[in-house]
């Protein structure tokens, strides 16, 4: 990571507002199901599904399909790469919004 991050250095995949919300919610938990993410994000099923697929393709989330009785349950968890990507994103964003004063180590 360069000393002074720029806006274009932010992970574009995470920076998209809906995906950022999904990743942030998942960062705070071990695992969540599709219904929880649907409820918390307010996205439509189709939109949420599309965003999760993009995050899965990037290796940021792991999606597991199981059953709860007869009801299908889709479990989503952040992978270690996803956690690292979120931490880096958060750190860079913080530097961009509150840049360190020149002369600071």
């Amino acid at each position, binding site marked *: 990571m360069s000393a002074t991050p720029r806006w274009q250095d932010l992970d574009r995949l995470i920076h998209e507002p809906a995906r950022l919300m999904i990743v942030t919610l998942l960062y*705070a938990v*071990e695992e*969540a199901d599709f219904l*929880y993410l649907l409820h*918390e994000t307010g996205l439509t099923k189709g939109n949420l599904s599309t965003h999760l697929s993009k995050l899965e393709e990037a290796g940021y989330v792991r999606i597991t399909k199981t059953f709860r009785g007869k009801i*299908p349950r889709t479990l989503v968890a952040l992978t270690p790469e996803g956690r690292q990507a979120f931490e880096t994103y958060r750190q860079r964003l913080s530097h961009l919004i509150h840049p360190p004063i020149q002369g600071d180590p």
Partner: protein
Amino acid sequence: MTSPQPPLNEWLRRPQRYWYADGLTEMAVGGIFLLVALTNLAAWLLPPGPWQNLTLPILQALVIIGGVQGARALVRYLKERITYPRTGWVTYRQPSSSRRWLLAGLTFILAASLAFLMVALGKTVGQRWLPLVSGFLIAFATASGWRLRLARLLILALYTLGVGVGLTLLAPPDPLDAVLFFSLVGLGWLTSGGWALWTYLRHTHPLDEDKAEHA
């Protein structure tokens, strides 16, 4: 290039706040307070003796630890039945096994120390001030839940403090003061949790099998 700051901290708080959305945890805590009230009553029924002062703190520490473990299992069971089918399932990040034992040990020490402190305070500053001290300690711990931005925890903290002040002013005899204090605080938590559950049930519906998600 500028961009509005995303509310990351608010989003990070949401899963923690979700745990309290249904009020089940508050009801469980209320139940534990009622159990503590019962231990005070039970200790009073014991024949008087020097070991009576020792029995109460140990009994209370055991009731608190047992109550916390039992309540945790009960809350999880009820969440599986009530909450998760409505608004989704979440597992929280768990501490490691060694850290869990450390936390259990610290909880026991803290619970026993607090109980001994209460007995010691009762002998030094006078039994009359115990509801105020207990009310302050519990209100302080409850108000720390404000980090989740849950207004009803602040209301509960004020209520608990109010119960402590009220009982200190009324000064009922020992052990009625402790029995009344923990009963009233427990009922407050049960009411708050019950109201939260009622509101939650009114605004959510269980997932229909036909409308189950297919991500």
